[in-house]
């Protein structure tokens, strides 16, 4: 769709440049088309049997509305936790030497490789009121597994690697000498962090957070095992999709799936626009 606008930036590069850039473009669009857009279109066609009123009715049942609320609310909390702790983890891994560093670096990716069902069972077992960790919270009346807190923890777990792994390579590219210079010029540590270190890694942090958020919104396998799945309490939208699917209600499932997709797309757009807007000040 945008192939016409490929050669936007006028430059003094050699004239065969169009030919050069077009290969990546073809790859990008073929891949996206075959893997993502074509299947997505097929799914849309399945929902198209519904008229807008039916679509709206299915998308806005009281239970459906409560699941959007719970899904996005909890995913935002999980994304913020990941943003803070992920950035910190990347910082610690890149800038400090300490025992266990390799170990820490090595386990960051485990949440992706572990099947989500295993993650779910494990978190539910570790965090229930008599579990290894849950028992420390139970005396204070804090229930973790089978509540929204559990859902949030599962979401943090499955999206843990995103922020760490996006910020890490950027930090590695930034020379420590820049901050050394700032310090030696007398800047306070706070000012150094705020003015020197943070700006270049903000795009990476936002990217990682956006991905973590997106992943948390879509997560099903682990959450369904950690949550009580009681409507209005901690039932999330992907579980509702699954419920409708099991009830052989494919249009109903598709509708919720599409609503999730649309909201995610809008939120991702906002985050990416923010980033693009933020970059203007760099140049």
């Amino acid at each position: 769709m945008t192939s016409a606008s490929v050669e936007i930036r006028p430059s003094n590069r050699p004239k065969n440049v169009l030919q050069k850039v077009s290969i990546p473009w073809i790859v990008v669009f073929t891949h996206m088309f075959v893997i993502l857009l074509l299947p997505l279109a097929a799914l849309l066609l399945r929902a198209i049997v519904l008229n807008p009123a039916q679509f709206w009715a299915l998308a806005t049942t009281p239970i459906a509305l409560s699941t959007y609320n719970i899904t996005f609310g909890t995913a935002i909390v999980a994304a913020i936790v990941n943003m803070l702790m992920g950035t910190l983890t990347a910082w610690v891994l890149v800038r400090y030497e300490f025992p266990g560093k390799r170990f820490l670096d090595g386990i960051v990716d485990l949440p992706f490789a572990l099947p989500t069902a295993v993650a779910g069972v494990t978190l539910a077992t570790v965090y229930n009121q008599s579990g290894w960790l849950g028992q420390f919270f139970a005396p204070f009346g804090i229930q973790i597994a089978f509540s929204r807190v559990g859902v949030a923890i599962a979401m943090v777990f499955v999206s843990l690697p995103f922020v760490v792994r996006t910020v890490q390579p950027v930090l590695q590219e930034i020379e420590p000498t820049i901050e050394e210079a700032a310090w030696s010029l007398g800047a306070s540590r706070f000012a150094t962090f705020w003015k020197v270190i943070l700006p270049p890694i903000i795009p990476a942090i936002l990217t990682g957070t956006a991905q973590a958020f997106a992943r948390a919104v879509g997560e099903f396998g682990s959450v369904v095992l950690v949550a009580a799945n009681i409507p209005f309490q901690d039932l999330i939208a992907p579980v509702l999709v699954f419920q409708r699917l099991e009830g052989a209600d494919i249009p109903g499932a598709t509708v919720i799936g599409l609503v999730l997709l649309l909201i995610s797309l809008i939120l991702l757009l906002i985050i990416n626009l923010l980033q693009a807007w933020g970059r203007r000040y760099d140049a």
Partner: protein
Amino acid sequence: MTLNLETHAPIGEREIHPQDSREWAKIGLILLVFAFFTVILIVPVIYVFVGAFSNGLPGFLGTLSSRPFLNALRLTLMAVAVAVPLNVIFGLCAALVIARKSFRGRTFLLSVIDLPFSISPVVAGLMLVSLYGRQGLLNPVLQAIDLRIIFSFPGIALATILGGMPFVAREVIPVLEEIGDEEEEAAKTLGASGWQTFWRVTLPSIRWALVYGIILTTARAMGEFGSIAIVSSNLIGRTQTLTLFVDSSYRNYDSQGAFATAVVLAGLAALTLVIKQVLEHLYAQRHRVK
């Protein structure tokens, strides 16, 4: 987890600022990260290991030598072998296009690339079924050329590719933006071809981002479950991947088998990291030689 922190950082001496408070801040941050990891990741992973060895080493090895497990391992590795290279090529191209060109719809394209993360795996599976299934859009074509996608390996591969699509692009773009394009422009001015510029200038500076992207794509490809569960016929020994094997073991009250398989998946993910460490080492060596 006992921590025995060294009090002196090996990263050079800093003369101007007071050492003590910086050291304390450093220790504090490290402890905070460890605490977070302990609660979210380490304890659950220990639980998985304990479960895997609940019948001792023989039980663990028993699972690992069963034929359904080996077939599942093979299928998972095959899916990884197809999905990772395709996603890496896509990711690199997408990153170059998005980070180096400005065009209308750039942000939109970026957001669409992110989308596979937020597609619930169940919906992702449903998408593929809607396209290639018996009632799917392309079914008449597939029937005509006698090609089977869903409930066969291609379906599993497609689901795996879809799940890991954004990683490489998303890892590489921030780095490309951070380093800017001055060096590339300089190389071009000096007469380097596009390919030479990419190979000699761009690639070295994005290498770590690329490596992380590959690691994440691989890890995700191995752990893919929800969508595969929908597009695979889950035939034991034929279309059962490791994650499907985990699920079916669990359902048969063979928790030990399920956890043992999860440990293998974790081990495979760790393997990619070992490869990364080796690469890092080799790279450092080569640079010293130069």
